[in-house]
């Protein structure tokens, strides 16, 4: 199963879990599997037209999917996919 790394701000939707695993052939179906099994997370990943939001990056390994095939990027069981959100904290 492919591994998806969940960032801290989204872990409130995954019962605090940092890792989600599912069998998926591409990035979109992996993210869809995450959305299907965790209510409320979908709108944080995709906008109304189904595009990834501009403050979320998705990586396969260390490469941005925009440099690959976007959400159509093929993945296999060895791949580690990461959701990287913009975070602003610095704690003043």
């Amino acid at each position: 199963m492919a591994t998806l790394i969940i960032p801290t701000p989204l872990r409130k939707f995954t019962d605090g879990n940092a890792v989600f695993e599912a069998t998926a052939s591409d990035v979109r179906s992996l993210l869809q599997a995450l959305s299907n099994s965790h209510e409320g997370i979908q709108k944080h990943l995709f906008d109304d037209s189904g595009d990834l939001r501009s403050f979320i990056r998705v990586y396969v390994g260390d490469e941005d999917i925009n440099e690959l095939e976007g959400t159509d990027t093929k993945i296999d069981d060895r791949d580690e996919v990461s959701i990287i959100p913009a975070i602003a904290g610095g704690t003043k």
Partner: protein
Amino acid sequence: MSHHDITFSKEELERYSRHLIIPEFNIEGQKKLKASSVLVIGSGGLGSPLLLYLAAAGIGRIGIVDFDTVDASNLQRQVLFGIQDVGVSKAVAASKRLKSLNPHIKIEVHDTMFTVENARELVSKYDVIADGTDNFPTRYLVNDACVLENKVNVYASIFRFEGQASVFNELLADGTRGPNYRDLFPAPPPPGLVPSCAEGGVIGVLPGILGSLQALEVLKVISGVGDTLSGRLFLFDATGFTTRILKVRKNKDNPLNGENPTQTELINYEQFCGIGTSTEEKREVAEMSVQEFDQWRKEGVKHILIDVREPYEFGIAEMGGELIPLATVLESTDRIPKDIPVVVQCRSGARSARAIRELEDAHGYTNLINLTGGILDWQEAIQPELARY
């Protein structure tokens, strides 16, 4: 001044000797530090270790931008400050501390907010900028000012147990500039999709780690030693102690320096981040002050008080309300009557106003009253023995 013209006193040579005896760094690297200037924006969690290490390392001129004053809740992680500084301007207190650490360098205090009006002028006066701010509007402002003024932006950001660091807009060997923050995140999350004030918090050591990494990258940028994080994003998750380094590419659609730049000056960053633009969020709700509420309690006016904060906040301080966290109010209507006044309260009054709008929209409530200023105002005016957070 070229770093070739730099000289050191005996005291300085002794102070910096651990740099001077690193073969790759040596006195040439130290001269570059002394000839350079760094602007640190924000002297909080990230700014504390940044400023301490930059001053200790011998950066010739350091600017500090901060408009805030030291609060007791800062001391959990802002190691620049001590209890004697509570209530004092951060930039002023920081300057005092740094001067006592290293008298051979120049410290410049900018006791002001970093704004669209002063950003480019401030940034233009320094060689390298280090971003230690804590919110999206200021982060985009720092980035854009650095790109427009051709300055390096050494970046770090933290959230709870997680941190990010990178070096943006660095001048590369081929004369081009490396990726910047907008290549990574073209636009910020709108309010509602960002963690709210109830969901903040940070483990005390984490800004120390990320701020120290920032200081290290500043020294590398200036000395030219090693490979910086330009074009790479460093990620640290303290919960599992995992680190990752991801590639950051330039985005041809970058509005500042992509193929067809559309932005040639600074913009309104509050608006860009969607702050204060939602009319729905602004719809007025009935409200009362903490003084009026105190009067109600003294006179025995029949009402109930609902506290829509999180349980961990309730544990710090509470004012006798029934705890129903914001996310659960719509499913908890059996505990929220319609026939007597219901006062709704949170930390500062924003979440309770939102709870009221949600209940009015979904269930037709007409008896809900927002406690303005929340438990913070209550603590200040009525019950000083409560803890502030």
